[in-house]
């Protein structure tokens, strides 16, 4: 990518920040997510969320979803923190804030489709990491949720160029990042990275956003990038893609990401991939409902 393109991306991403719709709690929340659990105070999270009634209400609705499997539904944010755990509440909040961070408007990519994919990927990342003893589940969830942030940037700041890419991807039934590269010369990975860096997201999440289509380029967080890469592919194969048919076959075990993940997590070998795939289908309907609850 030339310096020129990089400069254009930076300049247009800069303009996104001036948009009004980002909830006030969003950026402080992201900062909290970057710090360790010990440093975060429950009261602080509760206080932050209480600023914004809409976010608080949405957060409770999401926490009550069967996806989080609570026997008793929380009545307050504090209740949710206690029964779900702080990290999980943070990720739920992030989900809700993100929905409001970008205003409705001209989207080349159907927002419902985008959120289903992002939320689906977040969930698959978490389910995947549940099978791996040493993986950080909520980190995986956050990384999955944010991995395609660049598509939001594209819809906002490169809407004409991105519509051409989207149209080509649908017509030729090819992966969206390939169509982006062919028509725009850059992908959502670069635009996503620019916004993620502006927002000061954690380094490993930035790595995921920047390299989930080219893991070998990742320097710092390879196993996490590999986990998101594989979850992203799986989502696209099981009805949580970008809303069109991709002529694509996926051989998970011979994907380079598999070897990277296996090196870090030897228990990956024991994962029953077929069953994991079938179980994933169980979640698809749930995700559709959740997306219409949160973003509808």
């Amino acid at each position, binding site marked *: 990518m030339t310096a020129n393109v990089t400069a254009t991306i930076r300049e247009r991403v800069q303009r996104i920040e001036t948009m009004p719709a980002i909830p006030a709690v969003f950026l402080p929340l992201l900062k909290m997510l970057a710090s360790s659990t010990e440093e975060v105070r429950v009261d602080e999270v509760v206080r932050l969320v209480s600023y914004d009634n809409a976010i608080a209400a949405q957060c409770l609705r999401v926490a009550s979803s069967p996806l989080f499997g609570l026997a008793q539904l929380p009545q307050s944010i504090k209740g949710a923190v206690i029964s779900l755990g702080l990290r999980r509440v943070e990720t739920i909040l992030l989900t809700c804030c993100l929905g409001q961070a970008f205003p409705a408007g001209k989207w080349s990519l159907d927002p419902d489709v985008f959120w289903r994919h992002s939320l689906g990927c977040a969930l698959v990342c978490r389910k995947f990491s549940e099978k791996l003893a040493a993986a950080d589940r909520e980190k995986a969830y956050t990384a999955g949720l944010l991995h395609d942030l660049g598509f939001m940037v594209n819809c906002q700041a490169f809407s004409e160029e991105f519509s051409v890419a989207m149209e080509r991807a649908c017509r030729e*039934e090819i992966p969206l990042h390939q169509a982006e590269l062919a028509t725009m010369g850059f992908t959502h990975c670069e635009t996503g990275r620019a916004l993620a860096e502006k927002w000061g997201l954690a380094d490993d999440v930035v790595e995921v956003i920047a390299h989930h289509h080219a893991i070998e380029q990742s320097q710092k967080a390879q196993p996490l990038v590999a986990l998101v890469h594989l979850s992203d*592919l*799986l989502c*696209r*194969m*099981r*009805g949580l*893609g970008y809303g069109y*048919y*991709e*002529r*694509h*076959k*996926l*051989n*998970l*075990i*011979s994907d380079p990401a598999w070897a990277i993940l296996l090196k870090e997590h030897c228990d990956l070998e024991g994962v*029953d*991939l*077929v*069953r994991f*795939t*079938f*179980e994933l*289908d*169980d979640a698809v*309907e749930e995700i559709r409902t959740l997306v219409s609850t949160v973003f509808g």
Partner: protein
Amino acid sequence: MTVAPQTAFAPRAPIKSAEAVDPVYRQIRDLVYRVSGIYKAEEKLYLLADGCARRMNQLRSRTPREYWDHLTAQPGHNGELRNLLNEITIGETCLFRSQPQLDALRKVILPEIVAEKSKQTTRRLRIWSAGCSTGEEPYTLAMNMLEENEKLLKGWTVEIFATDLNDRSVDTAKAGIYGDYALRNTTTYFKHKYFSAVDEKKLQVHPAVKKLITFRRLNLQNDSEMLFMKAMDLIFCCNVLIYFDGASKSKVVNHFFKNLNFGGYFFLGTSESLMNLNDQFHLIHFPGSIAYWKPSLSNAKL
């Protein structure tokens, strides 16, 4: 005088929605998966519950928990498990049963095989529908291949072998006459192009479609018959393996592996899987479906 509560057996009504599912059905689902590789997703769990309800009526068991004992603890539980597998796979036969499978076949696999085999002198595609029952699957495959006749498969010879253990099924398959139920997923386009009306309710497959297919009786457990089915590019074997016990199943699957060309694909039913029956096949995901791949020679060591 008090009357004892009525405990006489009453037939169970079929379960219609996923909400009514008793947790025991999830245990049964796991058992079915362990034994057969068939997995009923949460939204299809009511189908499993329905199948159980029909078996429970037969056995006069009153609760799912009691039926669980029939499946696991009581004498003859293996036979009962087979009865249940029969129940849950029944009625899955129709033309165009799995569109994602057909999409994977036409959009991803065919271009790949055609590119690979174009390097060779013979332009021949060999497909085997193993356990073809009454012919819905081989006819669906034949029609889809005919659709590619003027495109991808121009200049190619397509051979489809359709076999079943049951003579009567093979005869029905040969006749190629189907009613509404079997045709429920068949679009008007395909009905007009490849069928003629037999009477008001039934359609018959055109001879041009039949010409692609060789029907015959074959026992998948017969080693010499299996050895005969060589050089296949694609094998479809949907909801058949459930009828075999562990050892025969793995023998049959190993045969299939040998019957396939390098780079060939093996398809099972939509909720079926190979589990640990063969570790030489690679699991491949396509949009909405999975298949097993015999690595091409260059990949064989992977």
